[in-house]
């Protein structure tokens, strides 16, 4: 029976799709058969970030409407064994997703897969609600910035009340905090909220901290999840997060200002 994890945030542009791609890839690398579903109907991005935009034939809405089978729509990732992507439709809008349709797709996937990652759109409307409805766990992606934190708080409230688990009265959705675009230098300068500040406001367990990194933009444009760029701090941070998600106790890295060695300071860059 697959575990359904929704990657949500409330605020847009904080790193949900980036995270979905990397966490999905990380889980597959560790040997778990994983599917990543793009719930952002009309504004699909997951296919671009995963580098499979030219192989999209059928999409999520096609499967719900019965125009195609799940097998036909799922795109097998070329780099990572056991990783599959279900892209969103670009020509429709969010009303094309129905609860029954989504439930059926998730149930069908659950038979074969270990993990289903739901990449949620931004906001608190139908698209985001649909992505989180069936979730067992949620990774709330947050930037250390006041509006992102407030929106994440809002999303947490909605998760508590509007998920299937909440409605039926099962154990609540397990919440994780993933802090992205973190910069220890700016925290020390007092310009940015610290990990402790965000944890204080949101009060959910910290899954990981992904430092601000130029590697993320590069990875997006290359269509490669940043976790595969394992020399970079961002990639390593995602790998740590996947490890923690699987239950391992991994110490948090990249929270302190890095002491640059002589050569690094002369040559610069990361």
């Amino acid at each position, binding site marked *: 029976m697959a575990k359904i994890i929704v990657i949500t945030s409330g605020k847009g542009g904080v790193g949900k799709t980036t995270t979905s791609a990397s966490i999905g890839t990380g889980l597959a690398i560790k040997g778990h058969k994983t599917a990543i579903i793009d719930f952002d109907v009309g504004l699909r991005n997951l296919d671009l970030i995963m580098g499979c935009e030219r192989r999209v034939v059928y999409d999520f809405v096609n499967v719900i409407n019965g125009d195609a089978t799940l097998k036909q729509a799922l795109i097998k990732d070329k780099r990572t064994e056991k990783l599959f992507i279900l892209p969103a439709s670009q020509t429709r809008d969010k009303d094309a997703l129905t609860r029954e349709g989504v439930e059926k797709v998730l149930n069908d996937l659950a038979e074969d897969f270990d993990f289903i990652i739901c990449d949620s759109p931004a906001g608190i409307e139908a698209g985001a609600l649909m992505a989180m409805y069936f979730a067992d766990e949620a990774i709330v992606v947050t930037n250390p910035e006041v509006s992102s934190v*407030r*929106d994440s*708080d*809002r999303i*947490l*409230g*909605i998760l*508590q*009340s509007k998920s299937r688990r909440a409605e039926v009265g099962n154990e609540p959705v397990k919440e994780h905090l993933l802090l992205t675009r973190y910069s220890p230098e700016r925290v020390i300068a007092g310009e940015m909220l610290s990990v402790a500040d965000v944890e*204080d*406001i949101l*009060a959910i367990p910290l899954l990981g901290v992904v430092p601000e990194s130029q590697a993320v933009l590069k990875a997006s444009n290359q269509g490669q999840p940043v976790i595969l760029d394992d020399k970079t701090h961002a990639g390593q941070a995602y790998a740590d997060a996947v490890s923690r998600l699987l239950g391992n106790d991994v110490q948090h890295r990249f929270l302190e200002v890095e002491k640059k060695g002589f050569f690094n300071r002369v040559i610069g860059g990361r």
Partner: protein
Amino acid sequence: MTDLCFQLKGSVLTTVVLELHHFNEVDFRRQLEQKIEQAPQLLQQSPIVFDLAKYVGDPADIDPVALVQLCRELSLQPLGFRSCPALNEAIRNSGLAVLPASSGRGTPFAEGSSSTNSAGASRTARESEAGSGKQQAARVPSKLVTQPVRSGQQIYARDSDLVIMSQVSEGAEVLADGNIHVYGGLRGRALAGVQGDMTARIFCHSLEAELLSVAGNFVLSGDVAEQLWKKPVQARLKDDRLCIEPL
């Protein structure tokens, strides 16, 4: 020997007293409608007694019939008039009672906002008589919340206190007819005594609230003294002003 048709008994009645200061139909109607909106049950279920002791101007200018008619249109129940001997004739003609001057004290009733009364506003005062016929409500258990109250959520404890054993996030609202206890950081808005209980209080472990209000008298975060911010405090009404004191 015929059966007794009636028996006379003494009784004490709780009423709302409407102290009239000025009367022009448009302003009076508007202001009265506002007050009714704020506390509909109170004003529409209690009988109303007009007190003209503080009327500015000549009471003889008042037309009791028109006044009563207006109030009845707004579903109020005018009972009688007092403190206006000049009008006794007109009052009796209107069908209402001329009541003796009050000897009890009237307690000011909670206003809808803490802003100063605009000129011409009529204040509603509630008479609290010793041994009044007010029923003692059965005890309603406090509403207990153990999870953080998240931004956008609203929790209302009707007829009771509200106890929150976690934080209240910015953008959340917690309301209670009674007291509010927040055993955590209070970052949102807290409104206690929302039905008019002026003895209600708000307690919290860390004051970071956007707004605190007791029975409609509110204080914004900007008005809170620096030394009280993020400290354990209680907020309560003292002489119609909301005071915040360290715990």
